[in-house]
């Protein structure tokens, strides 16, 4: 995806933002001769080389070494590449990863699409609430969600199994639900990825000219026939785009299968990368080679995603006026739909967080409800640990520095790409959107090796640098979406009224961009604080944020402590979001994401 393409659909996490379909800015005649690159463009280019191009290159360099780059006896070697690509050792893992990604993406699209249709076309009772419930998981941590589901539905000690056993008088080893399976992993991923599909498809549904459906009604077709023959085909680009988008996410996901300990059938490539990096005897070149293998597939996914986004522009038809689509009457169906939405909200948000709170209040991780004694001891104990306060500080640094820097650089990128254009603009555009194709854990290994000999190594700043690079596409995307909606003549009018370029930026451009940038900042704050995929590779005991600390507890099997830290993390995120929402007045509904 490049910043100049404006889909009528709404990408979410590594995608960017939903732009309203607005009149295209007058282009054409403005394309004068190429100007020499501005100072801004050169600065941005250098930043992107250090933040994006360097780490990605280092992954490829690292794959053809014998040891981790930076070690003394390291030399050039094809061994890791041969092992990963040709030995067959990882083929099962690769196929499993791709299969899991495709199934997850397909189901996300089905559920997200149906949800979007109901929420935009049917008078579902409590519609606003369900819509909130559907985008809420975007602001929650998939890691914490996976952890909560592990506590809920682990085969032996999970709350559901333990308590249903005595309630239903079953054997002590009866397993009713088991989240530590492939379907379990897909289920938890769905909870977090359906919202992306929903965002894409619902925005396309909202932008669709309602008279296209009305014309079908006028030609004698009822609700169902209209939905299948007109609405569904019109949604095809959005459906395809969200499919590949989710597939790319699911291919690179590390934390959900890792928490759920999926290793019965296969272990996903991202988990293999993690193992090769951290588990003794570690083999960094293999991790890098695995990273390149993952990279090719996500690259294909991103390419297909971009193509479908481009195609979707063809489907944007001229719309007469802003009429709202006619609401379909489904007297029974709307209640059924409401029930499904309620179940989703329960599974994705309510149940996991209740579990988290309950487990935090239960010392010794007792899951049998008959023996539960609630106390704050566990929380206080964890709270007093010195590594928790260090982690708090680190999370705060990440949560403040990363979104701020990303939004600023993103603004610079989008200004160069949207306003200055030119050949350098195109290069910057590609570099800025590149990290979408690189799974976080792979990107992090690149960052690690790039900065291994610098003073930032093993500090929280190397994590900060990695996250800034990884989230660059989102920052740029939000800023460009905002910038594309500001007609150039508004800026030109400022210049004609005697303002310098700088004054124009501060008096016209920035104030108009404020809403987009605030939404971007808030979402990036969420991403940065909950991040595990990258930070887990890069941070040591002194530099780890809360999310990694919680992960380390999971690794040690201390689920109760993990739950407490997960709760702390959730509180930090909630406070940040509330701050953005109430103090900064950031808009966070589905039309702004």
């Amino acid at each position, binding site marked *: 995806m490049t910043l100049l393409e404006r889909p009528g659909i709404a990408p979410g996490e590594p995608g960017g933002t939903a732009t309203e379909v607005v009149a295209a800015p007058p282009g054409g005649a403005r394309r004068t001769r190429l100007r020499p690159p501005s100072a801004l463009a050169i600065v941005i280019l250098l930043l992107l080389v250090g933040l994006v191009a360097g780490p990605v290159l280092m992954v490829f360099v690292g794959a053809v070494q014998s040891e981790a780059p930076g070690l003394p006896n390291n030399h050039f070697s094809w061994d890791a590449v041969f092992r990963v690509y040709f030995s067959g050792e990882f083929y099962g893992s690769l196929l499993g990863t791709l299969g899991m990604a495709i199934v997850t993406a397909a189901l996300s699209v089905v559920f997200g699409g149906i949800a979007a249709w109901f929420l935009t076309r049917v008078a579902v009772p409590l519609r606003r609430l369900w819509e909130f419930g559907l985008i809420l998981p975007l602001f929650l941590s998939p890691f914490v969600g996976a952890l909560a589901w592990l506590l809920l539905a682990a085969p032996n000690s999970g709350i559901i199994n333990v308590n249903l056993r005595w309630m239903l008088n079953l054997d002590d080893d009866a397993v009713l639900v088991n989240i530590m399976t492939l379907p379990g992993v897909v289920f938890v991923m769905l909870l977090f990825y359906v919202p992306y599909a929903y965002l894409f498809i619902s925005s396309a549904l909202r932008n669709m*000219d309602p*008279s*296209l459906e*009305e*014309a*079908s*009604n*006028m*030609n*004698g*077709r*009822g609700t169902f026939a209209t939905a299948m*023959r*007109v609405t569904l*085909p*019109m949604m*095809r680009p959005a459906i395809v785009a969200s499919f590949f988008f989710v597939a790319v996410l699911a291919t690179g996901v590390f934390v959900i299968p890792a928490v759920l300990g999926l290793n019965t059938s296969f272990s996903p490539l991202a988990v293999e990368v993690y193992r090769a990096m951290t588990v003794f005897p570690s083999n960094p070149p293999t991790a890098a080679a695995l990273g390149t293998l993952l990279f090719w597939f996500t690259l294909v996914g991103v390419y297909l995603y971009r193509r479908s986004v481009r195609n979707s522009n*063809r*489907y944007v*038809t*001229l*719309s*007469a*006026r802003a009429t709202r689509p*006619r609401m379909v009457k489904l007297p029974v169906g709307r209640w059924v739909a409401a029930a499904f939405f309620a179940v989703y909200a329960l599974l994705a948000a309510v149940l996991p967080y209740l579990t988290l709170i309950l487990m935090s209040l239960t010392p010794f991780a007792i899951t049998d409800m008959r023996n539960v004694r609630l106390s704050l001891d566990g929380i206080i104990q964890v709270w007093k640990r010195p590594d928790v306060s260090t982690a708090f500080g680190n999370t705060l640094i990440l949560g403040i520095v990363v979104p701020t820097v990303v939004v600023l650089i993103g603004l610079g990128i989008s200004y160069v790409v949207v306003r200055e254009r030119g050949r350098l603009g195109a290069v910057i555009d590609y570099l800025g959107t590149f990290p979408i194709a690189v799974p976080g854990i792979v990107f992090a290994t690149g960052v690690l090796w790039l900065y291994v000999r610098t003073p930032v190594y093993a500090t929280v700043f190397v994590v900060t640098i990695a996250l800034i690079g990884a989230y660059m596409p989102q920052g740029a995307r939000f800023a460009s979406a905002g910038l594309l909606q500001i007609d150039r003549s508004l800026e030109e009018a400022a210049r004609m009224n005697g303002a310098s370029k700088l004054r124009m930026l501060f008096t016209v451009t920035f104030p108009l961009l404020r809403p987009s940038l605030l939404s971007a900042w808030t979402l990036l704050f969420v991403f940065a604080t909950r991040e595990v995929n990258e930070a887990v590779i890069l941070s040591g005991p002194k530099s780890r944020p809360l999310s990694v600390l919680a992960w380390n507890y999971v690794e040690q099997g201390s689920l109760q402590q993990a739950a407490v830290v997960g709760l702390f993390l959730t509180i930090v995120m909630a406070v940040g979001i509330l701050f953005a929402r109430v103090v900064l007045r950031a808009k966070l509904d589905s039309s702004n994401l």
Partner: protein
Amino acid sequence: MSQITADQSAPTTRKNRGAALEVTDLRIKYGETEAVKGISFSIQPGEFLTLLGPSGCGKTTTLRCIAGLEPASGGTIAIDGAVVAGPDKHVQPEKRGINMVFQSYAVWPHMTVAKNVGYGLKGSSKSEIASRVDEVLELVGLAPYAKRYGTELSGGQQQRVALARAIVTQPKILLFDEPLSNLDAGLREQMRFELLQLQRTVGITSVYVTHDQTEAMSMSDRVVLMRDGRIEQLDVPREIYRRPASEFAATFIGRANLIHASLGESRTQAHVDGIAITSEDPYDGEGSEVTAVFRSENVVVGPDTAKLENRWDAVVERLMFLGRHLDVTLRLPSGLVRAEVPIDTPVSEGATVPVGVRARDVHFVKAES
């Protein structure tokens, strides 16, 4: 505006296949605001009726309500005597046997032209559908484009696809929602003619919504002039133009000179500021404060005014040469009057000239303060 193409007796003599439509005391509410406040009109089979009015007058809402795309909150709509919308009754749009041409054309971009047009023909065999589609595409002149996709066509062609799709189902009533407003001026005129031609050929009862008075005047058998959710005037175009029912009707359609005046003893003559204004038709409204309405093209300037019933002296304030005619702004004691006169009329700015209007070109309406 001397162009009157519609033959007033036409609806009964033309070939017609459409249904009659009866709208009685129709009310449409959006939340608290009432967009349509109780309007009634009826359409004969085959008639072409236009709902005309400024934006926000409720014309499109009325049309969508006839289509079944909006629910009525009061009153009834009956097609050929059968109530389709009324108290506790709302026949779904797909069951009404109506079709519609949308302002945005609503040509489905994922279907070819032929698929778009054949969409509404369900229950027929494939070959039957194909031949019907061919026939209609031939009729609108799109036969060579059958395999193209909707978005590959120009605005005018998309318009024709929408039209073909609407007539292929042989609806009882055809609705047009400002179908020409997205076309450029030249194409609009051509399409106006084609559309009318087609409506006459197929003879379907048509309800047409527009804010363009020229469209309304040139195409319709009758015009419903709407304002703020009410009917201002319902008549044949020529009568609306010649005898507007109100100041609004007079100014919305064509360019009118309005002079506030008070009726004297006779109901055919009014006075203001020392000038007398005579009309042929006696004023039949209430009160004695009236507004005299006459069209600027009926104002005569110069010696030709000698035999006219209304004859005043006026000062020429401004002259504008518009090619086809001379636009003259004249100052009367009562205020300014605009006249469109032949370009060879001997006038110059600042001169005092005789100005006149025939009594039969003057019409009194109730004065609005």
